[in-house]
């Protein structure tokens, strides 16, 4: 787009102008501009709790995830030891069951809420927002339900 015109009026130069003072070109409006009627007040604390949850779950996740990575990948023989027997051995203890459950729930909700804010920040069309968020919430709910089910119904004697 950069032109190298010196001391020139490029705009008035064209002889056949499709636009005139009576027929101006449409201006480019930014997405979702604020007017007198928008946004409507919802009077809930949802966004505040969402914001707080991100901070708190983030701190807890640092401990949970680093602990998980250490156990799975570093300590006691590294990643080679991980197999069905290893997982079965860990999930025999309720402590590790709840560790993994907390990690699953917090990571999914933390990531889900993060993606929700990303969608809110970047999706311009109202329809795009609705569809992306529906997809996101479905995926989050499905993963949480499936994961919780696996943790609690895990049977080490499965053949």
């Amino acid at each position: 787009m950069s032109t190298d015109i010196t001391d020139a009026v490029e705009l008035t130069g064209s002889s056949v102008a499709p636009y005139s003072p009576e027929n101006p070109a449409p201006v480019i409006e930014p997405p979702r501009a604020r007017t007198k009627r928008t946004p409507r007040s919802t009077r809930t604390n949802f966004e505040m709790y969402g914001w707080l949850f991100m901070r708190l779950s983030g701190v807890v996740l640092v401990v949970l995830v680093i602990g998980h990575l250490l156990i799975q990948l570093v300590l006691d023989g590294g990643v080679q030891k991980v197999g069905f027997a290893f997982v079965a051995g860990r999930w025999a203890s309720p402590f590790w069951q709840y560790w993994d459950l907390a990690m699953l729930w917090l990571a999914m909700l933390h990531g889900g809420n993060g993606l929700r804010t990303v969608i809110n920040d970047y999706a311009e069309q109202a329809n795009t927002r609705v569809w992306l968020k529906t997809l996101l919430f479905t995926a989050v709910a499905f993963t949480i339900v499936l994961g919780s089910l696996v943790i609690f119904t895990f049977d080490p004697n499965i053949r």
Partner: protein
Amino acid sequence: MSTPNSPTLDKHSSALDAAENTASHLITVTLRVRRFNPEVSAEAEWVDYRLPIDPKERVLDALHKIKWEIDGTLTFRRSCAHGVCGSDAVRINGRNRLACKTLIKDINPEKPITVEPIKGLTVLKDLVVDMDPFFQAYRDVMPFLITKGNEPTRERLQSAEDRERFDDTTKCILCAACTSSCPVFWNDGQYFGPAAIVNAHRFIFDSRDEGGEQRLEILNDKDGVWRCRTTFNCTDACPRGIEVTKAIQEVKRALITRRF
């Protein structure tokens, strides 16, 4: 200057020197201005203007020189031209600044200096944008003193410490440099934006004001302070040096401490 023992002569020659030096001080800069005229074309375009200018002058002076001497169709806002009215916030070399507070020498005059309208607001012509959504957000935080009970018979007194609490946010000149530098605002105009929050902060932390609760409630909503991603663009952009992000965080903290 060479004859120190004859003051009259010296004065004369130094004045002459100064005049001669001024001419030689002029440098040629290229101003690359983003121009848009809906009455001519639907497309905005970059137009380069080369002009001689003193590097100690400001970008606003360069814009004036273009408008007055080169091309009278160039359109931009300015009122006081001294950094108080907040009319001439533009994007200079990709950063939001006041054209009247930016010296040519401070922004590398070797390269073309780009001047664009601020982002996130409808461009009406050249550097002029529609400020209505910006001022709507400002109105929505109720930027005026709210009190209960009877009017006192004398002035509402305030201690120096209480005044100091919100001193930083009283400096706002509503130029929209912060709001139009905010990436959240670029993509979603429903967000209040930094300027509205700064002006809410100015009353929320004012000991004389009693509408703080209402204002916090307004900013607690889904397009309020919780949409801030603390990118600090607003603090960098503010021509008055207001710590905008800090003010937004203080409102967040007030909301949280109010609930817990």
